[in-house]
């Protein structure tokens, strides 16, 4: 009984942390989508310097640990006069890292669209920009939605890393409580349960979206009825 009451007393600070975790994840995810799309398109640019720069971005940020990127943003950038709050640093680190992966997903989605679609659109006088926006992307995005959905679950869990740059997320709140009370077992169990309770429904939601898309995917490129 005493244990239970004690655990309930741990709950408010942990839930506060969970809220921060959700905020960081959502903001970083939305930004990573936008930045990723931008770099994915840049990877396919007709101008080689743009292509090259985008490839460099993708390779560099996929090739270095997220943890190290967070350290750089929080501890090294201040030497260059750029001081960011833990929240901003965390969002920036996650955005940079995930946008590099997402850029590749967008690129492969775009490249999966048959050449005939480009040819038909161009033969109608569409500019590259227009055909990308009206013809290619609407089809490509359907293809990449499942992959992008999984990134959300993944970014939610990886956001625990931002605790190392003193952000009071769920992980950090857990560590604080644990070191203050020495109830490591109870507290980290609660932390794990909270992470899981949030991420499991999201994973389920993704499965559902994916299943829905699969049936409607027959709308695309399927055999004529």
């Amino acid at each position: 009984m005493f244990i239970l009451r004690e655990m309930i007393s741990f709950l408010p600070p942990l839930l506060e942390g969970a809220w921060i975790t959700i905020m960081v994840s959502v903001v970083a995810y939305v930004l990573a989508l936008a930045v990723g799309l931008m770099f994915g398109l840049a990877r396919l640019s007709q101008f080689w310097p743009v292509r090259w720069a985008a490839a460099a971005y993708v390779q560099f940020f996929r090739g270095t640990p997220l943890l190290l990127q967070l350290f750089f943003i929080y501890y090294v950038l201040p030497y260059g006069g750029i001081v960011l709050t833990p929240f901003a640093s965390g969002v920036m680190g996650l955005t940079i890292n995930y946008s590099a992966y997402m850029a590749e997903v967008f690129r492969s989605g775009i490249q999966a669209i048959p050449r005939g679609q480009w040819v038909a659109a161009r033969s109608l006088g569409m500019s590259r920009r227009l055909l990308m926006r009206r013809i290619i992307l609407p089809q490509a995005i359907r293809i990449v939605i499942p992959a992008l959905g999984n990134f959300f679950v993944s970014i939610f869990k990886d956001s625990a890393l931002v605790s190392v740059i003193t952000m009071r997320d769920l992980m950090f709140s857990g560590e604080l409580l644990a070191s203050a009370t020495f109830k490591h077992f109870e507290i980290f169990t609660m932390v794990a349960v909270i992470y899981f309770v949030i991420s499991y429904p999201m994973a389920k939601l993704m499965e559902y979206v994916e299943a829905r898309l699969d049936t409607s995917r027959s709308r695309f490129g399927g055999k004529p009825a």
Partner: protein
Amino acid sequence: MEVEISAPSGPPILKFEGVSKSYGPLKVLRDVTLEIRTGEVVCIIGPSGAGKSTLLACVNHLESIDAGTIYFEGQPVYRYLRNGRVVSDPERRIEQIRAEIGMVFQSFNLFPHLTALGNIIEAPIHVRREPPKAARERGLALLGKVGLSDKTDAYPHQLSGGQQQRVAIARALAMQPKLMLFDEATSALDPELVGEVLRVMRELAGEGMTMVVVTHEMDFARDVADRVVFMADGMVVEEGLPEILFSKPGNPRTRQFLQTVLNRNGRSEAQN
């Protein structure tokens, strides 16, 4: 050889002058010179690998050429010599020319995320910037013209191959093109669906549309074409009036090709 052209002979709308093109060591077009006049229906026939489709793709610069000049409405286009210097048309100008030229593909290439009507009005609204209402009205009329008034809201996957190709023709016509290109428009269709597409093409020809048709349908070429061009090995081997080219081909290669193809066609027609 020169054959006198009796049929429609408006001003030339399209002209190839000494056009050559290679893919690496492979020469796909060799010094092709060909003129298409407004209102003319020209069928290009020949064995596969002859360069027919490539020639068509060069018309709207889906493929670039290595040598020679293409003229559209009397103007050199895409990449040409002016005052001894090579000039490249800006992208914008190329897009404008493409908008004037309709193209129909072997594999239809309808946009799968848009309905039949959506496919048709996409370019008029976004390229030509027509008011959506006017574009819709013309789109519906075009669907009626190709006999698909009841398929307005159908997605491509809900249509048969023949229906998809008719939508594709309507899509090209929606841009009110000055010239229509058909790249083996019936080759991917089941035999029983070929007729409905050819019927639409025949109608179009009857209305005076200028058409360049790459085809293996010899009956269509004989009946509809004002002129037939025989290509082989990237060259125009022979061109002339269909009744002359089909009955008395001047070149042995033409004769050999026609013999092979007409025999096969004769057999398949007997089966139908």
